[in-house]
């Protein structure tokens, strides 16, 4: 199992990931709703299985500016994860959180970037705690790193990480909101040695 790759994942594993995505997205929505002091609805997340080199057009045109929050994960499971928001969704969340509108067309201020980083942190944290609870494995996230840039450039990061092991990448799409629906994407990237640990902890054949 040393050379586990997403190229050989089966239906059952996809279902498990979907379920982790579901619970994680649910936790994240609750956390964001609490932070913003509002009620949020959530749609059932969908799992996209893509060629790693074509990840960039799964979300939006390659040159569209998006927001990516990246965290490294250590302890029993090692690897990294990324949370992606479209620019308008990010601007909406930030303006809700800070209680003032984002100047349209302007770059994010330091303050807004740091609010964004915090939102990413909470969302990623909710997702990771879902994974940790389901597997009973300890997971320690790093501080979040943020980048606001072209989709293709940001998505080259997961593309490279998945590309080391195979041709495919896995992406979980979520949608939550009130009158405005926010689309977000999770990308979980366990290191190769962590895949069997996750599967084993979930009682799946390795």
């Amino acid at each position, binding site marked *: 199992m040393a*050379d586990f*790759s997403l*190229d050989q994942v089966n239906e059952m594993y996809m279902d498990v990931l979907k379920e982790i995505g579901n619970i994680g997205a649910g936790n994240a929505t609750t956390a964001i709703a609490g932070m913003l002091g509002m009620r949020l609805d959530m749609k059932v997340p969908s799992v996209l299985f893509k060629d790693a*080199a*074509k990840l*960039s057009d799964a979300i939006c045109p*390659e*040159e569209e*500016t998006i927001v*990516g929050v*990246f965290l*490294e994960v250590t302890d029993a499971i090692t690897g*990294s994860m990324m949370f992606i928001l479209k620019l308008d969704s990010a601007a909406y969340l930030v303006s809700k959180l800070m209680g003032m509108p984002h100047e349209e067309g302007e*770059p994010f201020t330091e303050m807004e970037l740091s609010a964004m980083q915090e939102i990413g942190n909470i969302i990623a944290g909710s997702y990771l705690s879902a994974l940790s609870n389901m597997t009973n494995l300890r997971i320690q996230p*790093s501080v979040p*790193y*943020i*980048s*606001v*840039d*072209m*989709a*293709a*450039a*940001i*998505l*080259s*990061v997961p*593309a*490279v*990480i998945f*590309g*080391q*092991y*195979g*041709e495919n990448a896995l992406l979980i799409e979520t949608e939550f909101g009130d009158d405005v629906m926010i689309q977000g994407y999770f990308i979980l990237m366990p290191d190769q040695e962590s895949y069997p640990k996750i599967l084993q902890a979930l009682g799946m054949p390795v």
Partner: protein
Amino acid sequence: MGSLIKVGMADLKVAKAPDVLTTLGLGSCIGLTFYDPVAKVGGLVHYMLPDSTQLRNNSNIAKFGDTGIEELLKQVTAAGASKSRLVAKIAGGASMFQVSNNSTVGQVGARNAQMAKTMLTKLGIRLVAEDTGLNYGRTVELDCSTGDYLIKSVGKPVKTI
């Protein structure tokens, strides 16, 4: 006006004047170009990882610096470029997230740029210009009429190298 030919990630293409080769949003990847100013033949490879020998799953040659650059050389010379006149330019190799340790994410951009230089020395082709590193994405265009390599980034003026 020639046509704009898109090169995807882990992909390579060759074109002649007046066409333009482009690749969108290079992050840690490298966009390496070969250009013969006399034959006006150009090529662009967009590779993701430096070294194919480090991995077992390496069937896509354009995904790796070592194999991708060799293949690009083969294809531009087959399209009429002369190896002795070829010049190379590179862009990309950014580190999109400022991670603090020595993980793949922090290092791959710099390693990709280094592989371009290693390969060019090995093949005896001159590197005439580069715009690499830092922490932002780059969209690039190689104009096969002039050999100009245009670099566009979010919130920055267009650069020609």
